[in-house]
């Protein structure tokens, strides 16, 4: 009797889980295995679904593809510039927000706006702000000439001008999340520490270095890690600025390379796409593991 009820309950549990397992199985677990299979199948033809060998050829092809190397370079530059920059500015702004009372709510609302906007749509606004064409100067170039510089086309111009816009827009997009998390972290620091420090006559800078920073450092660390992962996956903001033909613009990212291999004019090579995606995944996994290791080291008891 008892055995029977256990059995029925078991069945019921699995029944409730069934939709989730089904969807995750089809669109998550199976693809996860399959992507590795694809990446080792040489000469895969998506029309006839045949291949003529297995091995590391796809990886070797991808790693020797100048477009992929360009994409890797772009992605790394983007990551190295935007992650520290956005985290630093977000920290400054959050500290500033702590100090002001009357306008805090309004400012917080404004700062959060980029989070709820369509990355692709607003990216086009950035595109026209920075673009310089034969018949229009563009706003940013107007400001540059006012300040005495010479204008440059940030969208179709030299490499570093394009990279600048991309970094600028990326920082603009990721800022809301960072400000939100950091203001939360700053508000969570126990006031008593500050009172005690003030009684002792500690200077503000010292208070910041010795109390605030250590107290919120786990959150900063969290932001840096999620920032790394997010920036490694950059794609739709790049499309918004430079259009879909990213290889021609020299502005492709690793994710962009994966999609270009899969689809579009240069597409039809799921094996190359898989190999590139796995290389990207390896990088992200490394960062995640470093994250876990440092966390475990910092909190040995928990």
């Amino acid at each position, binding site marked *: 009797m008892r055995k029977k009820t256990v059995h029925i*309950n*078991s069945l*019921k*549990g699995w029944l*409730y*889980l069934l*939709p*989730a397992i089904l*969807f*995750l199985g089809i*669109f*998550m677990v*199976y*693809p*996860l295995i*399959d*992507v590795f299979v694809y990446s080792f199948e040489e000469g895969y033809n998506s029309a006839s679904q045949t291949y003529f060998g297995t091995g590391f050829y796809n990886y070797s092809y991808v790693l020797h593809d100048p477009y992929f190397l360009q994409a890797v370079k772009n992605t790394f530059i983007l990551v190295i510039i935007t992650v520290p920059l956005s985290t630093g*500015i977000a920290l*400054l*702004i959050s500290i*500033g*927000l702590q*100090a*002001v009372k009357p*306008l805090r709510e309004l400012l917080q609302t*404004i*700062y*959060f*706006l*980029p*989070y*709820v*906007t*369509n*990355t*692709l*749509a*607003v990216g*086009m*606004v950035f595109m*026209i702000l920075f673009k310089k064409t034969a018949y*229009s*100067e*563009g706003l940013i170039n*107007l400001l540059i000439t006012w300040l005495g510089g010479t204008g440059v086309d940030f969208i179709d111009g030299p490499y570093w001008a394009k990279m600048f816009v991309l970094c600028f827009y990326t920082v*603009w*997009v990721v*800022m809301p*999340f960072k400000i*939100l998390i950091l203001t939360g972290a700053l508000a969570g620091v126990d006031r008593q520490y500050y009172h005690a420090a003030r009684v002792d006559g500690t200077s503000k800078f010292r208070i910041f270095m010795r109390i605030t920073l250590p107290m919120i450092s786990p959150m900063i660390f969290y932001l840096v890690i999620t920032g790394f992962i997010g920036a490694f*996956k950059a794609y739709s903001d790049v499309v918004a600025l430079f259009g*879909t033909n990213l290889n021609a613009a020299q502005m492709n990212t690793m994710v962009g390379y994966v999609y270009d291999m*899969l*689809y579009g004019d240069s597409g039809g090579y*799921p094996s190359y*796409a898989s190999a590139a*995606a796995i290389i*990207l*995944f390896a990088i992200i*996994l490394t960062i995640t593991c470093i994250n876990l290791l440092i966390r475990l080291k910092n909190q040995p008891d928990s």
Partner: protein
Amino acid sequence: MQENNKKTSAARLRDLLRKLVHKRRNFLYNKNTAVRADYIKIEKTARRRKKTAGAITYILLSVWAVIVLFPFYWMVLTSVKSYGAYNSEYIPKFFTLSPTLQNYADVFTAVPLGKYLLNTVIFTLATTLLMLVVITLAAFAFARLDFRGKNIVFVIFLSLMMIPNELVIITNYMTVTNLDMRNSFSGLILPSVTSVFYIYLLKENFEQIPDALYYAAKVDGTSDFKYLLKVMIPISKPTLVTVTILKVIECWNSYVWPRLITDDENYFLVSNGIQEIRENGFGRENIPAMMAAVVVISLPLIVLFLIFRKKIMEGVARGGMKG
């Protein structure tokens, strides 16, 4: 009489004391005037420094506010300039004296933005509703039911959270193509109706509901499903609302999957729709009309945000990440 005398002597003593204290105070005061002047000075500089620090803070904060808001201003401004006016401005103007709504009419007539919007609404609603059903059932199983293998399945679910979407999208693209589901709503919707993270979030919430309620319901003969419907879902409404809003934002902004899976304009969502408008929209490059489309696309989420500001920010802080 004697009493009166006593009083006066006491009063006199008091006076004397008062005088002494006063003298002492005066003495101290005179002695300390120099120090006091210094003190006032120090306080003044401190106040000034505080004021400048405050001013710098405000300037810094306003600069960032301007950087955030300016693109929005520019997009609205450009969208109300007429095509001719915009293209004749070699040096862009910061305002316009003759605003026009022609561009807004154009985006609904010259390009099928209305269709894109409708598709996105259908996609967003269907995905979110389906996801709510799937994650509620799964979270209920994890939080309330006991069955063999539960813990193993839960660990597998959690480890799936680490898998980036970019890795599985390749096979999903092939799967959907092979199933002949390209250019269809089912192809668009089905891959994104589960979220392990939201299952996890909801499970945590469900577990906080006291067991006593469940046993009481069991005694009354309530079925598990009815208990989920009548007790757990109403109690967990705040979390469900948060999850819903986050999912709606995610759906509204999704770009990569719709771009891969549709090449028929009738199934475009706003993100790949706007990209299409940009590349081959009006037969010529029409930036004011494009900006009008951008405004139309951005507005729903901004309105949603202004209504549910607190909820959205809380939800994102609890575990939202863009993308």
